[in-house]
């Protein structure tokens, strides 16, 4: 923490500062809910289709089936994206109130426009915003943040691509806030790590910093939904356009 606090990062942020957000709800006209999210230069478009009729194997008698599909900015979907799809699916299966709409299917499609670091966190945040835009009932609001671990026991929140490549490990941590069933102490809903962190203490201190950052993301999401409501009530449902 100390090295970056004194030297500063390339874009002038402190070690625990996240980049600014820009978001546009209802970006895709044909989707039930959609969102274009910019986190710094990382840009992601997420679309939600649902609740749809679940077909064949996807039909679950007591729950909603969640399907996630990620498209990269170039080329076809490689194997490592299939693993990211699975991780996102696990987070959103828990987030969506699945018991309310059995035998239905919610399909999340994410298109990566540009990757400048913290891509998976941006995808999770964009999906959450598009679920809200579609009006699908959720247990909580999921928000996510990336931590990049560097040498000399330092870590950075919301790294850019260059900072991510310079670090030896990257972790994406997601928290769920508020909702009809609030359990404030047990709100860690997603955890993944590529690479290895050098000590337990650094890891747990990065968890508490990332929880603060995820709270900021949650406040941003609240702000976006409140603004959508006051400006134009029809924009929230996104069905007629």
């Amino acid at each position: 923490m100390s090295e970056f606090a004194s030297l500063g990062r390339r874009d002038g942020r402190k070690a625990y500062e996240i980049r600014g957000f820009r978001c546009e709800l209802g970006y895709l006209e044909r989707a039930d809910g959609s969102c274009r999210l910019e986190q710094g230069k990382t840009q992601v478009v997420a679309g939600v289709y649902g609740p749809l009729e679940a077909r064949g194997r996807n039909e679950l008698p007591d729950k909603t089936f969640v399907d996630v599909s990620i498209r990269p900015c170039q080329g076809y979907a490689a194997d490592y994206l299939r693993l990211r799809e699975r991780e996102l699916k696990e987070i959103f299966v828990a987030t969506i109130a699945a018991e309310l709409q059995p035998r239905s299917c919610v399909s999340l499609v994410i298109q990566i426009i540009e990757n400048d670091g913290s891509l998976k966190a941006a995808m999770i945040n964009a999906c959450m915003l598009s679920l809200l835009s579609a009006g699908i009932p959720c247990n909580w609001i999921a928000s996510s943040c990336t931590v990049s671990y560097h040498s000399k026991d330092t870590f950075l929140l919301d790294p850019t691509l260059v900072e991510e490549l310079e670090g030896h490990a990257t972790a994406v941590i997601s928290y769920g806030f508020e909702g009809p069933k609030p359990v404030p102490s047990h709100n860690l809903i997603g955890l993944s790590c590529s690479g290895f962190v050098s000590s337990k203490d650094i890891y747990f201190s990065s968890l508490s910093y990332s929880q603060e950052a995820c709270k900021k993301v949650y406040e941003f999401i609240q702000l976006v939904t409140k603004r959508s409501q006051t400006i134009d009530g029809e924009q929230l449902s996104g069905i007629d356009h």
Partner: protein
Amino acid sequence: MQSLGWDVWNAVRPKEFYKGFLQRGIRPDGRKLSEYRDITLRKGSLVTTVDGSANASIGRTIALIGIQPKVIEWKEIKKGDARTVIGKHCSVQVEFPSVCHRETRSGRTSEEALLVKESLEYVLEQILEENSFCIVPEKYYWHLQIIAYCLSLDGNAIETFLLALYGALLDLQLPVVLSNTSGDLLKLDQSQPKVKLSTKKLEEWPWVVPVGVFWTSPSEHYVVLDLSEEEEKNMSSIIWIWNNQKGDKLALSKHKEGQLSEIILQEGLEAAKAHIEEVMLRFQSQK
């Protein structure tokens, strides 16, 4: 309870059935919550077509890994699109053939196989040294083809694969290769004994412990190690805890849809620590 009652209760309400056992500090197969099934590792002399192999099993989960070294030219390495330094010198292929489980179908690589492959690649990055692959600098290098099969799946596949990988790496012996003065021609020197691949020290090798968390209410949860396949279905979340003996290679990743808190993570880490210590000591004593 008679045995018929057990099966019916388990089929109708599996989580309640399992909870009844956990509350008494034991599991349906008689193990304690942090007790492992039988772990066995057999190195070498199994697969004669490769230079390093190992067969590992934890309970009824069996994994077989074979490592075949090949000589590769410098220009092929430069052409390749491997993302990591070690990735240029190793290629990992993981398969879960349909023989391993009645629900597995052959064909498209399953997600579980991709997950194991990604994890093994991260591990190799940590334990191998780049300069041990060089035969003639800037001309010829060793390339390890690592092929992993799961022969039987009953939960905890990643740890079994890791055990087999470590066994195969410790068993691997590279033949001595001589080159002529200009470095163009290579000749296999059969007269010299084979050498082992040089790797980082065993204390630095990371180990993974999949920890299952059975969450019944905000105030009640149980931490269970070494899950069999049935137990994996009952868990609310499974955390893969990576660490080494020194404690300086930590990574945590969560699978399944449950909710966690920091207290649960700390408990999981404590439970995993004792097991990692035991496993690495067994490796060191074997070597």
